[in-house]
C-alpha cells in the first residue's frame, strides 16, 4: 500500500514536472531554426524530394549510421544470447505446432509481394514517404510470415550475416568516400546529383537507403530467426 501510494506520488510529481512543457507549448506558424534552412536549401544541397530523407540520410546521416549500428548490436546481442543457449542443451525437439493450410498458402502468395513492396519503399525513400528502415522492416515482416507459416524452415544464418556485414561495411565505406570525394563523412555528393525528383537523384541517398534496407531487413530477420531457433530449447 505504501509502495502504491509512493508510486502514485511519484507519478503525480512527474506529471507536475512535465506540466510546464505542455504549458509552454504552442503550435508554430512557421519553421524556425535549422528546419527553415533545410526547407529552403534542402533541394539544392541534398537534392532529395523527401526532406525527411534528406535529414535522415545526409544532414543527420551520422545518426542514421548510429541507428543502424543499434539494430546491428541488438541483433548481435540477441545472437550472443541465444547462441550460448544452443550449447546449453543439445535437445532440438521441435516445439512448434503445425501451421494451418490457409496461412501456408497465403504466405506463398504474399511473401514475394511483401518483399517487392519493401524493396520499392527503400529504393524510393528519397522521393516518397518511406526509406531504408521502413523498407527493411517490411522485408523482415515477409520473413516473419514465412517463419510463421513454415516453422521448420531453416534460413541460412550465414547468408543473413553476410548481407548484413557487406551492407554495413559498404555504408561505412560510402561514408568515408564522402571525406575523399566530397565535403565530409557521409556527404551524399559523391555521386551525380541527377534530376530532382527522379529515381536516380540525390547522390548517394538511394544507395545508402538500399544498403540500410538490406541491412535492416537482414538484421530484423536475423532477430526473428534467432528467436525462433531459441524455441528449440523448450
Amino acid at each position: 500500500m505504501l509502495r502504491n501510494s509512493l508510486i502514485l506520488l511519484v507519478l503525480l510529481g512527474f506529471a507536475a514536472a512535465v506540466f510546464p512543457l505542455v504549458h509552454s507549448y504552442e503550435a508554430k506558424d512557421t519553421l524556425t531554426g535549422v528546419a527553415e534552412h533545410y526547407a529552403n536549401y534542402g533541394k539544392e544541397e541534398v537534392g532529395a524530394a523527401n526532406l525527411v530523407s534528406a535529414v535522415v540520410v545526409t544532414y543527420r546521416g551520422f545518426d542514421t549510421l548510429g541507428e543502424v549500428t543499434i539494430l546491428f548490436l541488438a541483433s548481435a546481442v540477441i545472437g550472443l544470447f541465444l547462441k550460448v543457449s544452443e550449447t546449453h542443451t543439445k535437445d532440438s525437439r521441435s516445439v512448434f505446432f503445425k501451421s494451418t493450410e490457409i496461412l501456408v498458402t497465403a504466405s506463398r502468395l504474399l511473401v514475394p509481394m511483401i518483399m517487392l513492396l519493401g524493396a520499392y519503399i527503400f529504393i524510393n525513400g528519397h522521393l516518397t514517404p518511406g526509406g531504408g528502415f521502413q523498407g527493411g522492416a517490411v522485408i523482415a515482416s515477409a520473413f516473419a510470415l514465412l517463419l510463421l507459416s513454415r516453422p521448420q524452415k531453416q534460413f541460412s544464418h550465414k547468408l543473413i550475416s553476410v548481407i548484413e556485414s557487406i551492407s554495413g561495411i559498404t555504408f561505412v565505406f560510402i561514408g568515408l568516400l564522402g571525406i575523399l570525394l566530397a565535403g565530409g563523412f557521409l556527404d551524399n555528393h559523391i555521386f551525380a546529383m541527377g534530376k530532382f525528383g527522379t529515381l536516380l537523384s540525390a547522390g548517394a541517398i538511394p544507395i545508402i537507403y538500399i544498403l540500410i534496407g538490406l541491412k535492416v531487413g537482414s538484421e530484423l530477420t536475423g532477430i526473428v530467426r534467432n528467436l525462433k531457433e531459441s524455441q528449440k530449447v523448450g
Partner: protein
Amino acid sequence: MVAPIYIIATLLGVAFALGLFGKKMNSMAGLLSVVALGFASFISLEWLAGFWLYDRAAEYIYTAGFKPPFSINLLMGKDEALFTSLINIAGFFGTVYLWDKLKKIGSNGYVTLMGMILGLNVIIMTRDLFNLFVFLEISSIATAGLIIFSQNLKTIAAGFKYMLATGIISGILLLGIIFMYYFTGTLNIDDFLAVHSLAVKGFGVAVFFVLISIVLELKPFPANGWGLDVYESADSGIAAMISAGTATASFFVMYKLLPLGTPQFHMVLAGIGLATFIGSNLMGLKQTNPNRLLGYSSIGQVGLLVTILGLSEFLGERTTFIAYSILISHFLAKAGLFWISGIVKRSEIKEWAVLRNNRLLLILFGVFIFTLIGFPPFPSFFGKWDLVLNMASNNQYFWIVGILIGSLLEGVYLFRWLGYALKLDNAEMPAFEVKWNKVLPIAVFGAATFVVGYFVSSIHPYAKIINYIPLAVALAFVLIDFLPVYVKNTLAILAMAYYYYYLYPTLSSFGAVFGAIFMVGGIVTLIAGYAFKGQRRGFYPFALMMFAGLIGLIEAKTTLGFFYAWEVMTVGSYFLIIRGKKSMPHALSYMLFSMGGAYLMLAGFAIASVGQFNLDMSTLSHVLVHPTWVFILLAVGFLTKTASLGLHIWLPGAHAEAETDVSPMVSAILLKAGVFGLVTLFLAMGDQLIGGDVSVIYLLGWLGAITAVMGNLMAAFQEDAKRLLAYSSVGVLGYILFGLSLMSHLGWLSAVSISVTHFMFKSLLFLAIGGVVWRVKTKEMYRMGGLIKRMPFSFFSVLIGIIVLAGLPPLSGFSGKWIFYNAVMAKEWYLQGALIFFSGMIAFLYTFRLIHSVFLGQLKDEHREVKEAPFWILVPQYMIIGVLLYFSAIPNSLLKPIGKIISPYFPTGGLEWTGQHAVSTYGYWNGLVIFYIVIAIFVTVLVWLIINNRKAQKVKQFNIVFAAERPFKPETSHYAYNFYAHYRKAIGILVEPKITGWWEGVAEWAHAMGDKFRKIYNGNGQSYLIHIMAFIVIIYLISFGGF
C-alpha cells in the same frame, strides 16, 4: 595526424566486417578487433600528444559536408583527445584481458565490445545532442550485451534491470532533447551553450530533463541499484570496462553539458554527488563481495567527480586539473582492481588472502588501492589537495567536510580488504590461474599510475618542487627485493647514510634534531635487520619509504610538500606495521586514524592557504582566516600520530604486534613525526584562543598531562611486554606534548631532549624485549621470568633503558624531569605539573614490572636452554647504551645544543651552564658531579660488601625461604600475572577501556547505518525504477523550488 573520424570508421567497419567471420575464425576476429582498438588508441593518443606537445588547435569534424548546426559535427580537442584515449586504451587492454572469453563467444562478442567502445568515443566527441542520445543508446545496448558474456541467472537479471533503467533514463533524455529542439530550433550543443537560457520555463525544464538523465547515467545515490547489480554480476573484465569506460565517458558528457545548467543546478549537482560519494561509501562498509564492493567504490568516486563538476564555479580553472587527476586515478585503479578480481575469482573479500600466491598481483592490488584513496605519488593525491584548497579559499567548508568523510569511509573498506589480502590465512586455498594476457593489462595500468602521478605532479606548480628522489630510491628496492637480506640491509643503511651525509649541512634548527632522530635512528634500527635470514621480502621498500617520508617532513618547503611527505610516511609505516603476525586489525586502525588525522591536516593547510600568495610553510605564521581552526585542525592531525589520549587506541596493538626491529622504528622514531609537526605548528602559529579567551595550547597542556598519566597507567596493567612498551610511548608522548605546550625555553628544552632520549631508550627497550621475544616466542611477561641467567646482555639493556625511562638520576632521563620541575614552576601550571610527576611515578610501576617479570623471578623450565638474543639485535642496543651513558655523564652535550636551537624562539628563561653545572631560576644541577659521586659511593659500598661477603655460595633457583618448603615449579612461585592487582583494585576504574569502546561504538554505528541504507537495494528491478523516478521528481522539486 589521422583524422578522428577514422576511429569511428575503423571500429564500425571492423564491427560490421566481423559478421563475415565464421566460428572457425574466432582468433582472426579477435586479432582484428585488437588491431582496430589499437589503431583507435593510436589515433586518439596521437591527438593527445599533438595537443600536449605541439599545442595544436582543437579540430571540428563535419559530417555530410555541411556546417553545424545543419549537420552533426564532432570535436577533437584536448579534453576529447584525453578521454577518447582513455576509452580506447581501456577497450584495447580490456579486449586483451578478455581474449579467452571473447574467443569462446565468437564474433558477436567482439561486435558488442567494439560497439560499446565506438558509442563511448562518439558521445565524447559529438557536439550534437540527439547524436549523443543515439550513441548513448548504442553503448547502453552494447553494455547490456556485455553483461551477459557469462550467462547465468544473476547476469541476466542484472542485465534486465540495467536495460529497464537505461530505457527509462534515455526516454527522459529524449523528452528533454526534443523540447530543447522545440524551443530553440537546433540540436547543436554549441548553439545551446550560446543560448544558455530562455525566459520560457518549459526550456528550463527541458534542460533539466537532459541534465538529470546524464546525472542518472552516472548512477547517483540512491537511484543506482541497477548499476551495483551490474558491477556485481558481470564478468570482471566487463565490469572493468563499464567502470573505466562508461563511467569515464558519462562523466565527460556531464562535463560537456555542465554550462547548460544554472548555478543553482550546479549546487544541486554537487549535493547529489556528495550524497552519492558519502552514501555509497557508507553502504560499502558492510559489503563482502569484491565486485559489488568495487561497484560501491566506483559509484562513490563518480559521485566525487560529480561534486567537483558541481563546484566548478568555486574551483575555477583548477576544475580540470582536479577532476582529471581524480578521474584518471579512478580509471586506472578501478579497471586494475576489477581485472585482478577476475583473476582471483573469489566472491568473498576475506578469501582474497589467496592473492598472496602471486606477488606481482598483490603489489598491483596495493598500488591500486592507494591510488584510489589518493595517496602520493598517485595523481588523485594532488587532485584532492587542490580540491580542498580551492574549496577552502571559497569558504566552502561544508563540502570539505563531506568530501573528507566520504574519503575516510572509502578508506575503511578498502584498507580492510587490503589487510585481508595481506594477512588472512590462505593455506587451504587452491592457487588461481594466471595468464599473461590477463596480467599484462593490470601491470600496464599499475605502471601507468606511477607515470601519470609523476606527470601530474610535474604540472602542478607546487608539487613539482617536491624532492621525489628518496621515494624513488625506496621504490627501487622493490626491484632488488629478490636479494638476500644482508645485501639489502647494507644497501639500505648506505643509502640512508649517504642521504644523511648529503642532507646534514642543510639541516638547521629543529630540523637538525629531528633529522638526527629520523636518520641516525633509522640507521641504528636497521642494523638489527642483519639478524634476519633469507630475503625478508617487502620490508626494505616500505622501511625506506617511511624514512623517505620522515625526512621529507624536514625538507618540506611548502605545506604541500609537508603533507606529501606525511602521507608517504604513513604508507610506508602502514606496511611495516602490517608485517606483524597478528597486525591486521591494528594496521587497519592505524591507517584509519592516520587518514583521519591527515584529512584534518589537509583541511587545516587548506584554510591556512586562504589568501596567501604561495604555499610556503612560513605562511602558517600569518594565517589570515580562522587561525584558531587551522591550529586545532593541524594540532589534532599531529596528535593522531603522537597518539594522544582519545586518539591513541591504534597504537598499542600496532606497535606491539610489529616485528622486532619494526617496533622501535614505529614507536621510537615514527611518533616523532607528530612531535615535529607540533613543533613546527607551535613555532609558526603560536598560541590561539578559542572564543577569545580559552587558550588552545593550555588545553593541549592538560591533554598532554592526562595522556601521560593514562598512558602510563595502562602500561602498568599490561601482561604483554611489547604492549606495555607501546602504552609507555603513549605516556611519554603525552609528556612531550605537555612540555611543548608550556611554550617556554625550559618546557621545550625538556620536550625536545626527551624526544631524543625517548628515541634512544624506547629503541633500546623494544630491541631488547624484541630480542627476548624472538627467543622465547611469547610476549606474555608472566610466561617468562628469570631470563637474566640466560640473557644477561639483554637484561643490561633493559636495565639502562628503564632507568633512563623512569628518569632516575644519575642517568640522563633525569635531566628531563629536573628541567620539567623548573619549567612547571615558571609557567605556574602546578596541577598539570603534578599530574606529570605522578605519571613519572607510575612509570616506576611498569618499568619494574617489565624487568622483573621478564628477567627476574623464576626461570621457566622451557627456557632453561634459551640463548641470548641474536648478535645483530644486541649491536644497536649497545651503541645506544654508549650514547646514553655519554649523555648522562656529560648532559650539556645534549642539552646545550638544543638550548641554542630553542633560544631564538624562547630567548628568556634558559639554563646557565658552567661546565656541567646547570642553573635555572629555581634550582641547579650538575650531572657530571652526581655521576661521579654516585659511582664513587656505589663502588665503595660494593667493595665493602665484597670484603664482607666474599666467597658467597651460588645457590640454585629453588633454594629460597618458602614457608619451610621449596617450590617445585617455577610457575607457582613467579609472581608476575596481574602484578598490580591491588593497584587495579584501587584505581582500575580509570583504565576501563572507555575510549576504545567509544570508537568501537562509532565504527559499529557507521556500519549499522550503512547496512540500513543499503536495504533500499532490495534486488527488485521495479523498485530501482521507482527510485529513478522518485529521484527525478525530488531533484526537480529541489531545483525549481516547488511549482
